[in-house]
């Protein structure tokens, strides 16, 4: 009964989405206030209906309703409650429902928080949002209905893929989808602006918070996925250039570019056409990501059992929205008036370089990801494009971008002084040289590129802090004056500093963990010891344990540092009875910012085990950097809400364009 309710709510949501697609749009075209007013309530109700539908599916999972096919295929009555809930989106149907839920959530949020938007623009944005919702609701209902019943109902389910039975599934897909789908708002604003034929600084101010939110969630989602792969797969790697990872990286690059070009548009009314194009591209890349993951055209760890009809359906959605968006752009973009003039050496100039490099990076990732598909279609040859390809291209193109990052905020709008900016970055330059020298002293001169990487990381971190120091006149004014200035700074200034410093932190982690990591593969018996990074690792013995829905063999290791036991590590092999599958649970202990990582191979009948021991120096910085970036995003977002979210009436007249 509850499953039918969920199915019915989903159908109602589709009907409502179609209404929301047509009426507000018609209202905006004919200036009919009553039709325009339909948009907001429709968006909120649509979200409530999809929410109800999603809750029905979650309920079916929680009570293990095995008369629902989707639950049978992906759940088990013995599974812990958390994994019963997260298992809802650990499969194709459920994850698409989550996608639609988040899409509806963003629509409802525009309706709820977009009170300062002109009614006409808001109606158009919500109509475009409803076009996307209609397409995906239709997709779920026609090809991926999670509410199909099974008669007779089996007594027990097939269980969730054990690899997915992890807290990572609770966090990674929702975050990533919030990022992917958040890009749809920028897309909807871009399409609305093109239909309207009018765009100005206010438009950029409305789009930026949404883009910032989407970017923040994408950043966290990608970082979380990377950490999950790192500890769950047992390979000790954190980025595999897997097509699906690329699919999330491309929208991130485009969203980062959009975030920066929207600043230029907001402050200087320049780069209008480019910003609109980027908004379309960012969501197009999100859709492409959804297509690549959900269609099964690529071999990847993320692919669930594939079904060609679904692939074709998503491809059709992809063509309609990307093709339609770009065609509309081609026809209408010339009507948007160009903006202000500026010198090449200026804040605008630096932001253009940022956009240039980010879009080129997105383009090369796109090329590498789609090349195998194109080549196979044309010649039949099957190839794999992996880390050697991407590292060769991505790094040389990312380095110049990272070098110019600290310059950007130091340059003035319109016309900047490169020399003055360089002088202000003297401390950052010194810190970079010093850091490289210290690393050379600690690790030797063997890897000059790694030393350069360390220097680059410190250049970014200290460069970002220098900008803050310059703005509070640190050292050039009394300390009290600097503090007063610091307290009076807008939060978005801290946001920029943190986001840029976060990039540096991630770079430092990447360089250290790839260059100075150690890996040992050895066979150990109880009592054996091994030296890792000046610590001694001793295998104490094995132990059998029972988990809620698995049995595991645990190997107990003790870590000694200078004779004293400092940690106990228990990697294990788990056997999940329901699916007759084994998983490897790596044991990870953090020392400072570095990690010791143990993963088990086969255990022989003589009680010897193949052990893979990694020492990953500073590896946690990779993900901490992403967290720092996201905190920067939150700070900036909270500032923005204060400024534009709750405008005073006097401001509203300034912000709103003439109707």
């Amino acid at each position, binding site marked *: 009964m509850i499953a039918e309710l969920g199915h019915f709510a989903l159908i109602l949501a589709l009907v409502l989405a179609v209404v929301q697609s047509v009426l507000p749009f018609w209202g905006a075209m004919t200036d009919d206030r009553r039709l325009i007013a339909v948009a907001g309530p429709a968006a909120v109700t649509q979200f409530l209906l999809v929410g109800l539908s999603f809750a029905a599916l979650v309920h079916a999972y929680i009570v293990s309703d095995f008369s629902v096919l989707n639950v049978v295929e992906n759940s088990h009555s013995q599974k812990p409650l958390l994994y019963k809930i997260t298992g809802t989106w650990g499969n194709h149907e459920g994850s698409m429902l989550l996608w639609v839920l988040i899409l509806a959530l963003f629509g409802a949020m525009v309706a709820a928080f977009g009170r300062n938007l002109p009614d006409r623009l808001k109606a158009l944005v919500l109509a475009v949002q409803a076009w996307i919702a209609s397409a995906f609701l239709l997709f779920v209902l026609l090809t991926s209905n999670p509410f199909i019943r099974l008669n007779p109902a089996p007594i027990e389910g097939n269980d969730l893929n054990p690899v997915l039975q992890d807290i990572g599934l609770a966090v990674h897909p929702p975050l990533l989808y919030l990022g992917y789908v958040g890009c749809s708002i920028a897309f909807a604003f871009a399409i609305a602006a093109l239909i309207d034929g009018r765009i100005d600084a206010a438009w950029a101010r409305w789009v930026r918070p949404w883009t910032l939110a989407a970017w923040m969630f994408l950043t966290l989602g990608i970082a979380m996925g990377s950490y999950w792969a790192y500890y769950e797969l047992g390979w000790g790697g954190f980025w595999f250039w897997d097509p699906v990872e690329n699919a999330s990286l491309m929208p991130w690059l485009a969203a980062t570019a959009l975030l920066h070009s929207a600043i230029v548009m907001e402050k200087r009314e320049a780069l209008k056409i480019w910003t609109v194009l980027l908004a379309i591209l960012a969501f197009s890349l999100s859709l492409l990501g959804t297509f690549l993951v959900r269609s099964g055209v690529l*071999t990847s760890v993320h692919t669930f059992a594939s079904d060609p009809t679904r692939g074709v359906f998503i491809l059709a959605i992809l063509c309609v929205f990307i093709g339609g968006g770009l065609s509309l752009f081609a026809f209408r973009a010339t009507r948007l008036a160009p903006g202000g003039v500026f010198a090449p050496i200026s804040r605008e100039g630096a932001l*253009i370089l940022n956009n240039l490099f980010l879009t080129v990076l997105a383009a090369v990732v796109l090329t590498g990801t789609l090349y195998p598909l194109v080549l196979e279609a044309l010649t039949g040859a099957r*190839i794999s494009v992996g880390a050697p390809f991407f590292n*060769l*291209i991505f790094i*040389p193109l990312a380095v110049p971008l990272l070098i110019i990052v600290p310059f950007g905020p130091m340059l003035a709008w319109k016309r900047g002084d490169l020399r003055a900016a360089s002088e202000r970055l003297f401390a950052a330059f010194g810190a970079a040289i010093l850091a490289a020298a210290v690393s050379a002293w600690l690790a030797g001169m063997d890897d000059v590129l790694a030393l350069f990487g360390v220097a680059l990381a410190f250049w970014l971190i200290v460069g970002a802090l220098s900008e803050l120091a310059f703005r509070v006149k640190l050292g050039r004014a009394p300390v009290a004056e600097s503090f007063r200035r610091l307290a009076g700074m807008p939060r978005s200034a801290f946001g920029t500093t943190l986001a840029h410093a976060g990039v540096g932190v991630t770079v430092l982690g990447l360089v250290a963990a790839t260059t100075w990591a150690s890996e040992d593969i050895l*066979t150990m018996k109880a009592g054996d010891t091994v030296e890792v990074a000046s610590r001694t690792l001793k295998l104490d013995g094995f132990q059998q344990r029972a988990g809620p829905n698995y049995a595991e063999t645990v190997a107990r290791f003790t870590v000694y540092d200078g004779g004293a036991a400092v940690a106990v590590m228990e990697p294990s092999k788990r056997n999940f009875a329901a699916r*007759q599958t084994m998983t*490897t649970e790596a044991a990870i202990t953090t020392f400072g910012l570095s990690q010791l990582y143990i993963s088990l191979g*086969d255990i022989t009948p003589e009680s010897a085990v193949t052990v893979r021991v990694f020492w990953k120096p500073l590896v946690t910085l990779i993900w901490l950097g992403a967290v720092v970036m996201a905190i920067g995003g939150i700070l900036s977002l909270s500032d923005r809400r204060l400024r534009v979210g709750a405008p005073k009436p006097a401001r509203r007249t300034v912000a709103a364009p003439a109707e």
Partner: protein
Amino acid sequence: MTRKQRRLSLIGVAGVVLICAAGLVLYAMSDRIVFFSSPSDIAASTTAPGTRLRLGGLVAVGSVEKTTDGGVTFAVTDGAATVPVAYRGILPDLFSEGEGVVAEGLVGSDGVFAADSVLAKHDEQYMPREVVDALKAQGMWQEDGAPPHAVEQ
């Protein structure tokens, strides 16, 4: 600087970056991509020894052996041909005889495929597409989606 000059300088910079990117992509495509081969392709020696390859097929039943130095040897088959593989490292959890596998590495002059990474499917219902294609080419694939389990060497 006039609008026109500004635009020209922008196009110039963009052009340089794009040319660099295109050059890197072309170089990487000639040098850094890995071709996929089935055991039959390697048996027919269509590839020169020393080329990096991805080998896909089924792990031949009864072929997995541990070597004394912690390594493992097994054979990958597509029904028509079989290639011996040597690997040192930890095998994925879902690696087992009669199941699909993708190994990446080089064919040595002794005809043994020296793998530096071994990927198995991550889900028991899912088979790497390369493996499906290799099996289909040899008529070993059953359309119901179930892998042919009893592939003897």
